[in-house]
C-alpha cells in the first residue's frame, strides 16, 4: 500500500499545475468568485477558496483577467472575465494540456498492458 501522505502531496502538485488552466477555462463569460468556485466544483475540479480567490487577483494583476464590481442584483460582487491576453494564453495552455494529456495517456496505457 502506497504512503497516503506522499500520494496527497503528489496529487496536490498535479492539481496545482492545472488550477490556472481550469480557472481561465471557466471565465470566458464573467463570473464572481463564489460562482466560479461552484462551477468548478460541479465539474469535478474543486479548488479551495483560500487558493482560488487570491489567484483571481493575481491573474488580474498579470493582465489575464479583467474585473468589475456589479451591484445590480443582490449584494455587490466582483466579476472576473478573460482579457484578450487571457484568451490567447488559455488557447496556448489548452493546446499544451491536450498534447501532454495525450502523451501521458499513451504512456499510461502502455504501462497498463
Amino acid at each position, binding site marked *: 500500500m502506497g504512503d497516503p501522505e506522499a500520494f496527497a502531496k503528489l496529487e496536490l502538485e498535479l492539481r496545482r499545475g492545472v488550477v490556472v488552466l481550469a480557472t481561465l477555462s471557466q471565465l470566458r463569460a464573467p463570473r464572481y*468568485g*463564489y460562482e466560479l468556485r461552484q462551477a468548478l466544483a460541479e465539474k469535478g475540479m474543486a479548488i479551495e477558496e*483560500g487558493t482560488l*480567490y*487570491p489567484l483571481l*487577483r493575481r491573474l488580474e494583476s498579470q493582465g489575464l483577467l479583467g474585473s468589475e464590481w456589479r451591484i445590480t442584483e443582490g449584494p*455587490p460582487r466582483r466579476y472576473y472575465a478573460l482579457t484578450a491576453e487571457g484568451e490567447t494564453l488559455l488557447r496556448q495552455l489548452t493546446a499544451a494540456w491536450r498534447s501532454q494529456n495525450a502523451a501521458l495517456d499513451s504512456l499510461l496505457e502502455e504501462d497498463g498492458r
Partner: protein
Amino acid sequence: MNAEKLIESYVTEVAQRLPRRQRNDVAFELHALLHEELAAKAEAAGRPADPEMATELLQGFGHPTHVAARYRPPVTIIDPADGQTFLRATVIGLVVIWSLGLLQAFLAIPTANLGWLTALGYWWGGTVIPSLWWPGVLVVSFGLAAWSRRRWPERAVWQPRTREHVQGGRTGLVFAVLGILLGLAILLEPRRLLDVVWQGRAAPAAYEALTYNELFRSQQGPWILALLLSNVPLLVTALVQGRWSPALRRLQVMSSLGLCGVLIWATLGGPIFDVEASDRVTKIALVATVVFTLGTLGHQWFRRVRPAPRSPRAR
C-alpha cells in the same frame, strides 16, 4: 464573538498584510465571498451559521499571513537551488566565527584575569550576537546573485569548464603572486611597514611591537618564508600554462598543508613577537589562517567527484 465579527476580524488580518492600494477592495470582496461561503455551509448543515462554523470555515481558508501572501506574486529572495549552499555557508561561517571568538575569549582568561563564566559572557555579547552580520551578508549576496540571474538570464547560462580551470583567471593569479611577494616583504621585516606608512616617524613602541622574537626568527620564520615562497613558482607555472594541472594541484595542497603545520608550530612553539599584545593578535590571525586553509582544503576534498558505482551495503 459571533460569526460576523469573526469574519470581520479575519478579513482585517488578511487586508492589513496587503499593499495599501488593494487593501480595501480585497477586504470588501473577501468579506462578501466569506459570507457566501458561510451561508452555503450553513445551508448544507441545515442550521444557522454559528461561531464554530465560521471558525471552521476561516481555518480551512488558511492563516491570514498565508492567504495575504497568495494575493501577491511570490517573492523569492534566495533561489531554491541556492538553499543548500546558503544553509551550508551560514552554518560553516557561524561555526568558524564562534570558534575563533571562543578561542579569543579563552586566551583572554589568564591575561585579563577573567572567570570562565565572564569569558563566556564576553564571547556571547562580543562574538555570537554580532556574528549575525554573517547571515545578513549571505542573504544580501545570494539575493543579489538570484536577482542578477533573473535580470540577465543569458549570463547565467552554463559554460563548459574543466577541473583545471583557473579560478579568477590569469588576472587573479597575477594578484596572488603580487600578494605573496608583498606578504613576504612584510614578513621579512614587519617594521618596514611602519617606515613606509609613517616615513620613519612611528612611535618607538610601534617598532618594538613588531620586533620578532629571536627564537621565532631562527626556528619557524625561515620555514614560513620558504613555504610561502614555494607557492610563487606554482602560481607562475599555472599563469604560463593557463590551467592547474593535477600535479600542480597536488604540489599546492602539499605546500598549504606544510604551511599549516608550520603555522601551528609557530602558534604553539613560543612567542612570535617580543611584545605580548602583538604576539597574541598575530597568533589569532595565524589560527584563523590555518582554520580557513584547512577548511578550504577539507571542503575541496569533501566535494571531490570520482564517478564510481555505489558498492552494495554489507549485510
